[in-house]
C-alpha cells in the first residue's frame, strides 16, 4: 500500500510546519497549501532533505472561498489526509471596535476552514476514504470577554467538525477535532503563557499524528486542558459572567 499524501492547509504556520515534518518523517508525501508558495520554498526543501519524501507547493487563499473548489481540483492526487491549520487570533479589542477586523477573525477561524473541509469531505466521501483534521481551540468551549470573537468562530468550527464526523461515520471518512491549549508559536510570541499549560508546535504535531493513526475523534494536546475546560464549562453563568479569566 502506498503511503497517503498529507495536505497541510495553512502550511506556513508553526503548527502546520511541525505537522508536515511529523507526517513526512513517517514517509508521507506532503502537499503544502499557502497563500504565497515562494515563502515556504525553503521549508519544502528542508522537509524533502530531512525525510526523503516529495513535497509539492500549492497557492491558495483560504478567505477566497469561491476559489476553494478550483484549488482542490489542482491537487493530484487527492490527499489521503488533510490537516487544516488555518486560523487568525486577531485582537479582541480591535474586533470589538472594527467590524472589518471582527469579520476577518470570524471568516479565518470558521467560514474559511469549515467550507474548505466541507468541500474536501464531499470528495473524500465520494472516494470512500480519507481523514480530515481540524485545528480548533479550547477558546471555543466557552465565550470569554478576553477573546470571544475568536472563541465564537472556533466554537462554530468545532460544531461543524462534530457534525461532519457524525455525517461521515460509516462512510470511510474520519474527522479529528484538535483543541490545543496555549501553543508557543509566532501567533503567541511575546505573550506570557503558563508553562504547564503551553505546548510546543512539535507536541501538537505528535498528538495529531497519533490521533490520525488511532482514529481518535477529539483531543486536547495536553491532557490537563480537558480538566481546565471541564471546570470552566461548569461554572454557573451567574458567577461566570462576573469573572475575569
Amino acid at each position: 500500500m502506498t503511503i497517503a499524501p498529507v495536505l497541510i492547509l495553512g502550511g506556513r504556520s508553526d503548527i502546520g510546519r511541525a505537522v508536515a515534518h511529523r507526517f513526512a518523517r513517517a514517509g508521507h508525501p506532503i502537499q503544502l497549501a499557502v497563500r504565497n508558495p515562494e515563502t515556504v520554498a525553503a521549508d519544502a526543501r528542508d522537509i524533502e532533505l530531512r525525510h526523503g519524501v516529495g513535497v509539492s507547493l500549492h497557492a491558495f487563499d483560504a478567505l477566497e472561498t469561491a476559489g476553494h473548489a478550483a484549488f482542490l481540483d489542482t491537487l493530484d492526487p487527492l490527499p489521503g489526509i488533510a490537516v487544516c491549520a488555518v486560523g487568525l487570533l486577531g485582537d479582541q479589542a480591535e474586533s470589538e471596535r472594527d467590524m472589518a477586523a471582527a469579520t476577518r477573525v470570524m471568516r479565518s477561524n470558521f467560514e474559511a476552514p469549515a467550507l474548505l473541509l466541507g468541500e474536501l469531505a464531499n470528495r473524500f466521501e465520494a472516494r470512500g476514504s480519507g481523514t480530515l483534521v481540524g485545528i480548533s481551540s479550547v477558546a471555543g468551549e466557552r465565550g470569554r470577554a478576553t477573546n470571544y470573537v475568536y472563541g465564537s468562530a472556533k466554537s462554530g468550527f468545532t460544531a461543524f467538525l462534530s457534525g461532519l464526523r457524525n455525517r461521515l461515520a460509516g462512510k470511510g471518512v474520519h474527522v479529528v477535532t484538535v483543541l490545543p491549549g496555549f501553543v508557543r508559536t509566532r501567533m503567541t510570541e511575546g505573550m506570557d503563557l503558563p508553562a504547564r499549560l503551553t505546548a510546543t508546535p512539535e507536541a501538537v504535531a505528535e498528538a495529531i499524528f497519533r490521533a490520525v493513526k488511532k482514529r481518535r475523534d477529539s483531543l486536547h494536546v495536553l491532557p490537563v486542558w480537558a480538566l481546565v475546560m471541564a471546570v470552566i464549562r461548569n461554572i454557573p453563568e451567574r458567577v461566570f459572567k462576573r469573572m475575569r479569566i
Partner: protein
Amino acid sequence: MMLSGWGRYPWAACHVIRPRDEDALRAALADGPAIARGNGRAYGDSAMHPRSTLDMRGFERMLDFDPGSGVLVAEAGVILGDIISTFLPRGWFPLVTPGTKFVTLGGMLAADVHGKNHHRDGSMRACVDWIEVMGPDGCVERLRPGEERFDWTLGGMGLTGLILRAAIRLQRVESGWIRQTLIPAADLDAAMEAFEAHAGARYSVAWIDCLSPAPALGRSLVMLGEHAARDELPQTHGGAPFVVPRRRALRVPMDAPAFLLSGPLIRAFNALHHARGSRAAGTRLVDWDSYFYPLDALLGWNRIYGRRGFVQFQCALPLDASRDGLSAMLRRIATAGQGAFLAVLKRFGPGEGRFSFPMEGYTLALDFPVNRRSLALLDELDRITIDHGGRFYLAKDARMSATTMRAADPRAEGFAAMRREQGLHSAFASAQSERLAL
C-alpha cells in the same frame, strides 16, 4: 529572561529575541549590540548579552545536499543531531563533531569546535566550503576559507557578525559503528606515549583521572576509534549497518545535593571507572552515539553539579611544554582534591586560524562545581597554563579576567583591534566579550 550557559554559571537577565527572517535580524541589529545564541551549549557566558540575545533556532532549515560530494547547505540553527539522524542512514557523518550532538551549526562554526580527530583532520573549519554572515550594516556576505573575515569568524565566538548559513562537507562512512580500542595508561607519561604512538588513529581521546596522586598521577584510559567498515560488522548488523540500538535517555530530575560532589565520592567513582575500563582493554565495536556523545544519554546532566552550577576549565598547551604543564596541573588538582567527574585529555594537531583555540600540543578539560575553593584553584590553573605558553577555550570559559586572557593569548589584542576598526564592537557583544574586553 534569566539566561546562563550550559554550566549554569553565571546567570544574567537577558532580553531574548527570536527572529524568523533576515529582516527581523536587521531590525534587531539596528537596536544596539547583540549576540547570536544557538542551543545554549557553550558553558559560560559566550552566547548571552543582557541587552539583546538573538535566539537563532528559528533558522533551522536544511537547504541543499549534494549526494555526490556530501556538501550540506544549512541554516545556522540546525542541530548537529538532526544532521546525523538525517544523513547517517545515507552513509554520511560530520567530519568534525564536539562532545555533544545538541549544538547548532552556527555555534560549531563560531567556536570553531574540535573533535577527537583534531590531530588528523583539524577543527570545524576543515569541513567548511563557505559561510554567509550578516555584518553590522545588515548586509549578508559569503565568506570562503582563505579570506580574512572567514578566518576571524571561525573561532570568533559570534563577535564578527551573525552566521546565517554554511556549506559543510560531510564524510562518507560505511556504518554507524566505531571500532574502539581501549588502552589503559598507568600515568601521564604512558598516556602521552599512547597518543604519540597512535597518531595515525582516526579518533583519539583519553579519560584522565585527575584525583589520583603520584605515582599514578594522570592515569588514563586512552580511547582510539575508527569508523567500522561494513564487512567488519557481525552478521547481525551487516544487513543494516547504520542501525544502532536506541539508547534510552535519562533525565536528571533535579539539582543534585552537594555531598554527591564531595572529594572522596568522586575519587571512588574515578577509581572504579578506571578499574572497569582497564578490564575492558582491547578492541570492540561501539555505536556512534555512545562513542561520540556518552553524556548526551543523560539529559540535563549539567544539573548534577547542583544549584550553583559548574565551570569547565579547558586549556591547550604547546607540545614542548605539555608534559611539564600537565604534570604541574595534575599535581595541583590532585592535592586540592577538587572534583571533576569528567576530565579529558587529547592530543591536538597544528593550530589554524586567527583566533581559533586549538594549538599543536595537548588539551585538558575538566569540570568544577562553582565554589570559592574551586574558583581559587582555577586561578592557579590559569597561571600554570600561562607559564607554559598555553591558552583557553572561550566556548568553555565563564570566569577568567581580561588580564588573564591577554596574558594567555596575544592574539586577543589583535582581535579586539580588528573589531574596533571594522565597527564590529558596537554591533556584536556578549557578556563574555565585555568581561574579556574583546
